């Protein structure tokens, strides 16, 4: 902690130097830095644009085509596969690992058929995604003791509140009683948004005013849950950048508060990740995992063109599995994660 001091002093010092420099060179700079005004820019990069037009065929179609053309499996084919993985946001490192494993298997098993390649590479990724789960998707924990507490975290705008609303509906539909805790006391109207969802889903909501201390909201909410004997508690937290230390500390405090009321809670701590997110999601999972021990990922907005490949990296590098996916706006569009469907989406 103490080291901050040093750097603040350094920063102040540099700022001081800058000030002097600014005053000395002000006139000079003003002449040099006249910013040209620009009108609307025309599309100059037509070529690139054309080249970027999405291929009609899925990757497997392309592989088949390539194989027909060349009649053999070679490095170029492997590179194309790696490209597909990177384009799906699987990430350079994890893609590299997958392709290395594939290369090894091709050599060892003397694979020559496209169908075989397809089966092998999906098998490799499947093993990666389901490692430690005996080849089955882990899914959300079942209710052992009342209430089952699920904490939702994530950066801004990934769909935490919406996911909670949908999940609440799902639980209510199966006859469970659900309490939502509105611990996003920061974003304007976040509490109202959750309240609307609570009403739609037929769930109860525990809330305070905007600006209230989120830990205190959580504390009161959990007390209420214990008193009213509800089955499921879903906690909504404010979206926060994982780089903001204060906010991550705040989250850690929420986590500790939960444990104070219910020692073995939260039973699930879910990081909500937007499928369009790129490599940054890895950092998110790492930092959120430090503040609250993550038990899973919810991958939202899979109904767009993004593939959400980053979850492969999150499982492979940080060992946090995907538990739920969001594929649309309606409540029925929150589903349990299925690795086969996911792989189909990546390669098609």
């Amino acid at each position, binding site marked *: 902690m*103490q*080291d*901050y*001091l040093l*750097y*603040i*002093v350094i920063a*102040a*010092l540099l*700022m*001081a*130097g*800058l*000030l*002097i420099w600014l*005053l000395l060179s002000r006139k000079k*700079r003003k002449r040099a830095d006249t*910013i040209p005004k*620009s009108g609307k*820019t*025309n*599309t100059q990069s037509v070529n*690139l*644009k054309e080249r*970027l037009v999405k291929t009609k065929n899925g990757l497997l179609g392309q592989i088949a085509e390539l194989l027909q053309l060349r009649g053999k499996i070679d490095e170029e084919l492997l590179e194309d596969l790696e*490209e597909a993985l*990177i384009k799906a*946001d699987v*990430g*350079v490192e994890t893609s590299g690992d997958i392709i290395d494993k594939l290369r090894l298997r091709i050599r060892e098993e003397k694979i020559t058929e496209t169908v075989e390649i397809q089966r092998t590479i999906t098998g490799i990724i499947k093993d990666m995604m389901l490692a430690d789960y005996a080849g089955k998707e882990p899914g959300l924990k079942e209710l052992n003791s009342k209430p089952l507490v699920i904490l939702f975290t994530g950066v*801004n*705008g*990934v*769909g935490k509140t919406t996911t909670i609303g949908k999940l609440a509906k799902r639980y209510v539909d199966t006859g469970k009683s659900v309490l939502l805790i509105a611990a996003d006391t*920061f*974003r*304007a*109207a976040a509490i109202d*948004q959750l309240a*609307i*969802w609570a009403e739609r889903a037929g769930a109860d909501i525990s809330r305070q005013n905007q600006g209230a201390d989120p830990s205190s909201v959580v504390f009161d909410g959990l007390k209420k849950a214990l008193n009213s004997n509800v089955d499921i508690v879903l906690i909504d937290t404010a979206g926060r950048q*994982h*780089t*903001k230390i*204060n906010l991550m500390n705040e989250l850690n405090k929420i986590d500790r508060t939960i444990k104070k009321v219910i020692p073995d809670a939260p039973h699930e701590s879910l990081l909500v990740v*937007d499928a*369009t*997110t*790129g*490599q*940054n*999601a890895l*950092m998110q999972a790492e930092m959120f995992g430090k503040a609250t021990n993550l038990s899973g990922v919810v991958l939202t*907005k899979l*109904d*767009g*063109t*993004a593939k959400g*490949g*980053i979850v492969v990296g999150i499982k492979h590098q940080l060992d946090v599995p995907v538990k739920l996916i969001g594929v649309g706006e309606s409540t029925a569009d929150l589903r349990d994660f299925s690795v086969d469907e996911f792989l189909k989406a990546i390669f098609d």
Partner: protein
Amino acid sequence: MFNSLQERFDGIFRKLKGKGKLNDDNIKEAMREIRRALLEADVNFKIVKNFVDQVSEKAVGQEVMKSLTPGHQVVKIVHEQLIQLMGSQNFKLNFNDNRTNKIMMVGLQGSGKTTTSAKLASLGRKKFKNISPMLVACDVYRPAAIEQLTVLGKQLDIPTFTINTKNVVKIAKKALKEAESENKNLLIFDTAGRLHIDQVLMKELRDLKQTIQPDYIFFVADAMTGQDAVNVAREFNDQLEFDGVILTKMDSDARGGAALSIKAVTGKPVVFLGAGEKISDLEEFHPKRMADRILGMGDVLTLIEKAETAIDEEEALKLAEKMKKNQFNLTDFLNQLAQIKKMGPLDQLMGMLPGMNNNAMKNVKVDDKEMARIEAIILSMTPRERDKPALINGKRRLRIAQGSGSSVQQVNRLLKQFEQMKIMMKKFNNPKFMKSGMLPF
């Protein structure tokens, strides 16, 4: 912002610069690393390929090989290519005082349209004298989106136009009328987030565009977007012909590859960067400065602009004079901290300083709360103590520590570092030092 990309480039170039001569292998290796760095920053795959091809084509040319400083030549090429990728011209907002100016915000869900709308309204009012903004809530789908905009508007003292209907065209028409009767000459239309492949909702935007005839359409994109960023941007551009891109959430450690990709795919420039939840945090995008930042050259120009808006000139002059004469005391330091605070979060400012992203600084997360602690310590001193820190003996230290809720060690540390700071300030006053690379001009 861009920090990790910057670190990667730093490492790659240090290796290159260390070599007296470059051969094909050196360059090939460097290009492989650049490719990886860009891919990990979420720059689009095709664009990375193109970028690397172009750089290596230029780098293996005779001039670079023959040059005495081939490593620097490669950096220069990368720098030029980066600027070209992001567009070499700066975008300028222009408003006409005599009629209603209209801006339409579009983008995916959760990209930050509502917050950015408010930021933009605030920026318009601040930067243009006769501009009076009004927010128009056209997000009729997300629960509580309209409330969110209204609350933000209230915080800024900017009116928000809402009517209870699901028909956005109707909302827009009424808003335009209202603007005329209320003398508002800047309307910002916040639309609902939608998927680029949702034909029905995309048509709604086209209809809205038809009705509003906006001066600008801005596509709001999350800086953390991965490879799909270009697909989304292209589709929105094909359907709506937007004018520019606003990248949000730049205060995260996102490597912002989208900034490098979107311009190349759509031909439309990135115009603003949104960083932080504070309303003031909308920053103009300058391709050259951004290239500087990515390549670890700092972004002193933006820093200076921030300084100019936040710092009182007279005060600054006085301060500079004091530093020159080495009369800088703790009261001045306190003032300086207050001014720095006005300029924005510390970690953002530090990112703009050249050389601030080397390995030593890598793991340092600066917390603005620490600044409050320093202030508390100084404020617990008497004016005389602030003037002459030498006065502060053990007893006084204890009192100061207790008064500020910190430990004696923290007080000691502050005093020691303040002394070191003064020594370094002397060096700053030496013009030779200023030229020797502290600042890269």
